[in-house]
Every structure is written in structure tokens, then in C-alpha cells.
């Protein structure tokens, strides 16, 4: 089933409505309807069954991806963490997401425009003990942050239409996060509320390329069942993004 997601349009309408530009119309009624917890028809993502092997789709530029419908999802900026911190500009207004099911995995392609490629080759921490080892790896910079992206979903199917907190889940509904950092690679994480993110020690397959001011990222996720909510996040290194300082989407229902 193909279904186009329209949160960007919805956000735009909501903004117009807030500014008083939209009178009482059917669109307004539609908005009011969409706001009820049980009806998330405007916030859903379709996934396509792909016959293409996972290994092919792991290349985010593979032509096979273009056969799969793309969802343009509006990004929001988190508010400043501290009152004394200036709000960050919305430099990345949206992310294009494609979802494919292949070989029992959920494949995710994320494409977003980012004027600066903030990444680096960082030396790995040597496994040999540092004592007596003449060469030590060096810190190259202390003030840089790297472009990153993540997909989050609840560890258990939500019951009674109640979705976990968008702020990294909550104790009753823990979440899994597939986190990719352009300099440090992929890490599978778990969380049950803000500030509780823990690394599981596991990685996951993913590939990313940056060209022409655009990040293209493909990830191999577990076989997340339909009906589960997904949320996406993007960190822009040049905006000193890390932690909750980021771009995020709302929960989107996986069809």
C-alpha cells in the first residue's frame, strides 16, 4: 500500500492557522480531527516490499531506492536546553525518507540537505594499554561536532493508541534508537526517557555519502512490524548539535 505522508503540509497549515490566515474551513476541521490521538491518518509512513537484496539497498544512492515512494517529513528544532542559550536557526527544514522491507529487515533511506559536511577521521582508541606505549593517538580538535542521524521506535507495540514520549521514550515504553554519527559510525541504543540513552554495544549496517550539499544515508533496521511509530532525528555538526540539541520529527505510524 502506498500512502503519502503530509506532515510538512500539516505543519504549514497549522502555522497559517496560528497566524489567523485560515478561516473556519474544512481544512481546519481536518486539522482538529488529525489532532485527536486515535486518528493519525496524516502522520503515517508507507513501506514498500522490495525484492532487491539488502546489500544493494545499503548503498543509499542505489537506483532501486527511486522505485520506492519518498516521504518528505518536516523537521522541528528542539528549543534551547538552557534559558541563556540562543535559539538555533532551522537550517534543515525537512528530511526525505524511504522505507523498504527486504530479507526480513526494514531498510531506511534518509536524504537531507546540509550545507556543511561535518565529519572527520578519528583515530581508534588502541587496544594495547597506554602505559609504556610511546605513540599515543592525538585529539585533533576539541570544539567540533559531527553530522548525525537517528531512527527511534518503541521496543514493544504501543497499547491503546498511546505512543511513548517523543523525548526518548519513557519507563513504561522504552525505545530503541539506531544512531549514526558521520565520524564515529553506527550504534544501537536504548532509552526510557530523556537523559537515559544507553549504548547496547551493538552496531548495525549503514552507509552514508555526502555530495552536492546533501547527506544520503541507508540503514538496516530490525523487522519493525507495521503499526509501530517511528521518529527521525538529525544533528547538524556546524550548529553544534548533540544530545537533545537537534532536528526531530513527530512520531509517524509505520503502515
Amino acid at each position, binding site marked *: 500500500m502506498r500512502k503519502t505522508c503530509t506532515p510538512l503540509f500539516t505543519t504549514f497549515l497549522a502555522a497559517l492557522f496560528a497566524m489567523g490566515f485560515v478561516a473556519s474551513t474544512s481544512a481546519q476541521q481536518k486539522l482538529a480531527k488529525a489532532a485527536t490521538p486515535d486518528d493519525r491518518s496524516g502522520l503515517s509512513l508507507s513501506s514498500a516490499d522490495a525484492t532487491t537484496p539488502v546489500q544493494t539497498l545499503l548503498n543509499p544512492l542505489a537506483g532501486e531506492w527511486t522505485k520506492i515512494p519518498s516521504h518528505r517529513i518536516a523537521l522541528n528544532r528542539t528549543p534551547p536546553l*538552557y534559558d541563556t542559550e540562543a535559539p538555533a536557526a532551522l537550517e534543515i527544514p525537512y528530511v526525505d525518507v524511504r522505507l523498504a522491507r527486504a530479507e526480513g529487515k526494514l531498510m531506511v533511506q534518509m536524504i537531507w540537505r546540509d550545507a556543511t559536511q561535518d565529519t572527520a577521521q578519528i583515530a581508534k582508541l588502541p587496544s594495547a594499554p597506554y602505559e609504556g606505549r610511546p605513540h*599515543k593517538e*592525538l585529539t585533533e580538535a*576539541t570544539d567540533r561536532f559531527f553530522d548525525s542521524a537517528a531512527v527511534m521506535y518503541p521496543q514493544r507495540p504501543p497499547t491503546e493508541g498511546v505512543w511513548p514520549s517523543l523525548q526518548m521514550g519513557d519507563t513504561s515504553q522504552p525505545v530503541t534508537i539506531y544512531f549514526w554519527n558521520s565520524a564515529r559510525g553506527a550504534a544501537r541504543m536504548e532509552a526510557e526517557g530523556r537523559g537515559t540513552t544507553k549504548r547496547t554495544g551493538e552496531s548495525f549496517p549503514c552507509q552514508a555519502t555526502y555530495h552536492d550539499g546533501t547527506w544520503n544515508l541507508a540503514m538496516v533496521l530490525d523487522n519493525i512490524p507495521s503499526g509501530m511509530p517511528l521518529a527521525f532525528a538529525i544533528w547538524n555538526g556546524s550548529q553544534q548539535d548533540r544530545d537533545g540539541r537537534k532536528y526531530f520529527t513527530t512520531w509517524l505510524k509505520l503502515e
Partner: protein
Amino acid sequence: MSRHQYAMVMDLNKCLGCQTCTIACKKLWTDRDGTQHMYWNNVETRPGIGYPRQWDHIGGGWKDGQLQPSKQPTLDDYGAPWEFDYEQRLYEGKKKPVMASPDPISGPNWDEDVGALNGDDNFYFYLPRICNHCTNPACLAACPRQAIYKREEDGIVVLDQERCEGYRYCIAACPYKKIYFNEITGKSEKCIFCYPRLEKGEVNACAAQCPGRLRFVGLLDDPNSAVHKLVHVYKVALPLFPEKGTLPNVFYVPPFNPPKRTNYGKSILEDPRLPLEYLIYLFGPEVKSIIVRLEAELKSAQNGTSSELLQLLIGRDAETRYQIRPQLVQIQSKIGGHS
């Protein structure tokens, strides 16, 4: 509030600027991967740009209950060490001498002994710095992951390497810039007040190695400790930049010597070598009364009266300077002290 609080007092009149403390700390704690720019203990020349440079101007700390914004120091601000072009040694005297490579542009204590002019006279003094293990730590408040905690048993502020994700809010929040980012581990690090040594009854490495014997270490709440006497009884030691609101537990006996050659018969405040305004900048307005008291004690001792305070400040032996009390500080398990 921790049950006990370890504290350090440094008598700036005794600091030689020899950097033995810096090297003691470096050899013990930061001779690892990714730590080349870190000096958990550093000694900088004042007035000067400091380490990391301009740390006292780039922000952090508390104001009206709010954490203040700050720039993240760059590697150049720390002044990472440089190497020398050793191949040139074969040509010494013929071509170029052995040169630093690449050309150094900064370094810790880069402006060593430069100081500033007070009238026609140059002045400078040394300022050794470690983490202040504050009672109201801005770094702890800034960390969204609760990776930083203050040990309940002894007030030492430590950074849990397991919880840290390298966000560096703590570095921005610390007005003293005493937390450092290790890019190889992706985590931040800081002075741990040598707690593994204290737990064995040994004083901090920086204090143990100090040839100037300027450091005093003990529990601030132990009435028999030198730090308690200097801070709370004699009241001759002050924290650095008290207006930053973090309530440091490292204190300084302000420098007031040496007298100028021409000021015989004048009080130190009439014709000071070190401008009072600069000391007030560093230690707040209370510094003036401390200098007056210290000068009075000195004059009194010069007239043959014994001074308990000066004897304590001289601190001839380790027993006078250090009161390490592992028996008073019951070590908590990590889980017990940090939920």
C-alpha cells in the same frame, strides 16, 4: 551536600612556577591517548592569557541562578604540544637549527613570565589551577546525562566515563574551563583530586611533588586541618572568581610579596608591586583585608613575635600541610553515592 569536603589551599606567595605539579599530574593521569592537550593541573603566569587562553573571559558559571553561555575552547586555546624537527640536528651549525615543527602558535603558559607593567615596574606571579571541586558545580548542573556527580563522602566532583557522551555542556558551564574533551574516547575528563591516592592516605600528586610546599590539603570540615584553619579560622584564603557562583573548594592565599625596593616604610597597599585592582579582579574585594592582615603578621614576626599563622603557612613538614583522613571518609560504593 556532601558529608565531608576535601579542599586545597595554595599559598601563591610560595609558587616558583616550576611546573613540577603539572608534570606530576600529567605523568600520573593524562599521558594517555587523546589527552595531549590536557593539564588537569596547570600553572599559568598572571596577568596573562591563561590556559586555555582567555578562559576567564569566555563564559560559564552562574548568574542569577542561570548557567551562563560560553565558547568551547579550541585545541589552539589549550596549546597542544609540538614536536621538533629532529632530522635537522644532523645539520646543526650548517643549515637550520633544530626547530619546532610545525611552528608553535600557542601553548600552556605561552606567555610565561611576561606579566604586565605597574607604573614602570614589571610584575607577575604564578597561578596553579586544578578543578575547584565546587560545592555548586556548574558542570554537574549542565550535564543532561547526570554523568558528573559530587561524591557524597568527600565532595570530590568526578565524571563517570560510562555515562559521558561527550556533549561538552560541562566544558561550557565550567567558568574555570577545568573539564577537557578527549576526542579519541569521545568523552570529557577532569581532575579527580587524586581520590585513589586519598583513599590510601596519600596526598594528591600535585601537592606531594611541590618543591615550594605551597599546597595544603585536608577536609574543610575537619577543625584540625590546615585548610580549615586557613579558610575558616585565619580567613586568609579565597576562591578564584567567587562571583562565578560555583563555590569553589580550592582556595588561594593571595600574593602580596615581594615588596618593591623603594617602598621602605610604606605599607604594601600604599605602594604595591602587585596592583590591588588585579588581585580584586581574581579574588574579589575581600583580598584587601587579607593582604593587610598578612602584612601585619609579617611585620609582627619581623619584630620577633611568633606567628602561628605564618608558621602554618611556612608548613615545613607534610604533617602540617596535609590532613588526609581516609578513616573519616567512609568510601561509598559508586551506586550508593550516585543514583
